[in-house]
């Protein structure tokens, strides 16, 4: 049994007879032509292991569920996913043409063959769907956290499964503070803190689960577009490199697990033998690698961005209609969101829009063109990307993760309810969530 690491959160696990690939994002950028995997050179289609028996996908974020890579697989290959409260993710896979999608209940093991068993583990969040995976054969057990934020009970259960190798996330994958209107000093301070917290979480996950070998993965991506190079700074940026969690583990005083720093395309056998096929990207060489990658992909990335097109003349009315619908349909979400949003669709055919999602507003227009000074949240987003989101071609969250926008907030605090509304505004989902939320808070 061995695992080939294919970059970011993608692992190929091979037993004597079977191969399963998990979260295949291998080629091209993701998150609206912004993220690249941490590799010395951009991967090509030759790097995609299309001759697999099974695919597992942890959740619907682009860096785990990436169409360009998935299009290379035969549509008859069984795809396993976690059974989530909604069918949203299932339906996204159906749209790609895959015919055999199997939903696994959390913690119910599924025997795929004589020598391969998988167990999907759902995250505890009410508002976001994600999962981790345990893969077991007669030779050993591998745990893949992907970027699932697990409840402590599940973490202890993974420990009880005695994994030989564990893959653990170690880095922020978020737009905060990158897109916010903070001073450089404040942004740097928040970034450092966030990076520290994530690396600390890596240390604690590894310490509770205690595999024999732990690999730091699902970490920070590279942003090679010239307009986004600053996000990559290994000192002041929020996105880390795998040498940082290793150092943190070694300095923590914990023991019993060996941290292995793997580069994309490296392999590790179940007894911990590390086969190096590539040079890892570390905080010491990240910027050199980035600068080379930025030149390598420049033409392709610019072409991809040009092909995104431009906003149509109908965009202003589409924005007003879209937000009027999702805000009016979700009174319980309004009660929790309770804020005014200034949305700027930036560029040709864009405009300024006010979204009134305050708890006291019960009727009338919730969205209109115009601007206000007393906004609680400010978003300036390229108009053509806003159009894709209001058309439901692009998840708001994917757009946000691209970091190709600017934001501000007053008061300066996270509003999970607003993000939850945008994540999936389906009124049934929202109502069900708040039935539970209001019971426990």
């Amino acid at each position, binding site marked *: 049994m061995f695992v080939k690491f294919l970059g970011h959160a993608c692992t190929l696990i091979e037993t004597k007879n079977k191969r399963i690939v998990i979260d295949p994002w291998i080629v091209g950028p993701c998150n609206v032509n912004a993220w690249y995997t941490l590799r010395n050179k951009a991967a090509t289609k030759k790097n995609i292991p299309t001759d697999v028996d099974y695919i597992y996908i942890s959740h619907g974020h682009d860096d785990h569920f990436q169409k360009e890579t998935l299009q290379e697989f035969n549509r008859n290959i069984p795809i396993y996913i976690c059974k989530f409260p909604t069918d949203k993710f299932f339906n996204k896979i159906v749209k790609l043409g895959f015919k055999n999608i199997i939903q696994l209940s959390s913690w119910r093991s599924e025997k795929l063959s004589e020598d391969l068993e998988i167990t999907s583990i759902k995250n*505890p969040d009410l508002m976001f769907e994600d999962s981790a995976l345990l893969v077991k054969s007669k030779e050993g057990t591998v745990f893949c956290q992907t970027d699932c934020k697990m409840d402590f009970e599940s973490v202890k259960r993974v420990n009880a499964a005695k994994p030989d190798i564990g893959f653990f996330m170690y880095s922020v994958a978020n737009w905060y503070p990158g897109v916010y209107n903070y001073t450089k000093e404040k942004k740097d301070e928040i970034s450092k803190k966030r990076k520290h*917290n*994530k690396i600390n979480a890596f240390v604690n996950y590894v310490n509770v689960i205690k595999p024999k070998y732990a690999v730091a993965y699902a970490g920070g991506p590279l942003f090679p577009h010239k307009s986004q190079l600053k996000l990559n700074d290994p000192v002041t940026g929020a996105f880390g490199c795998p040498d940082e969690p290793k150092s943190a583990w070694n300095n923590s005083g914990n023991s019993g697990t060996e941290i292995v720093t793997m580069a994309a395309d490296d392999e590790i056998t179940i007894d911990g033998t590390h086969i190096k096929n590539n040079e890892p990207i570390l905080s010491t060489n990240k910027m050199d690698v980035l600068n080379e990658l930025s030149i390598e992909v420049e033409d392709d990335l610019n072409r991809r961005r040009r092909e995104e097109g431009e906003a149509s003349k109908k965009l202003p009315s589409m924005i007003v209609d879209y937000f009027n619908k999702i805000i009016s349909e979700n009174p319980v979400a309004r009660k929790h969101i309770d804020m005014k949003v200034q949305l700027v669709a930036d560029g040709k055919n864009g405009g300024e829009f006010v979204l009134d999602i305050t708890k006291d507003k019960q009727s009338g227009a919730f969205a209109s063109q115009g601007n206000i000074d007393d906004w609680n949240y400010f978003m300036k987003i390229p108009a053509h990307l806003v159009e894709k989101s209001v058309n439901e071609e692009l998840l708001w969250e994917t757009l946000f993760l691209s970091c190709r926008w600017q934001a501000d907030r007053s008061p300066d605090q*996270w509003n999970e309810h607003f993000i939850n509304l945008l994540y999936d505004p389906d009124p049934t989902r929202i109502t069900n969530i708040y039935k539970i939320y209001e019971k426990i808070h």
Partner: protein
Amino acid sequence: MEIKKKKDMLEKGKLVVISEKPKVIVYFDGEKYFAFNGICSHAKWPLELGTVDDCTLTCVGHGWAYNITNGECKTNPGRGLKSYMVSDDGENIIIREKDV
């Protein structure tokens, strides 16, 4: 609910579990004692593993941060911890429910 514990089990700058059911942890900053629910509201990680810096307790699981003086969640407003009243009789601290 009333929990009485010897003060000598508490150490400045440490998060100490003083009750398992309900789970209550106490933090002593050198001058004051703060008591609150010891399980993170997010994913139920044990908060005694966390770190305290400038009255902010950060959970080691996923970085949720709480104000230890009142239990409010700083990272996810509205998802705070139950906090308790703490009194000091010289030898012991006494933890009680806050008056509603």
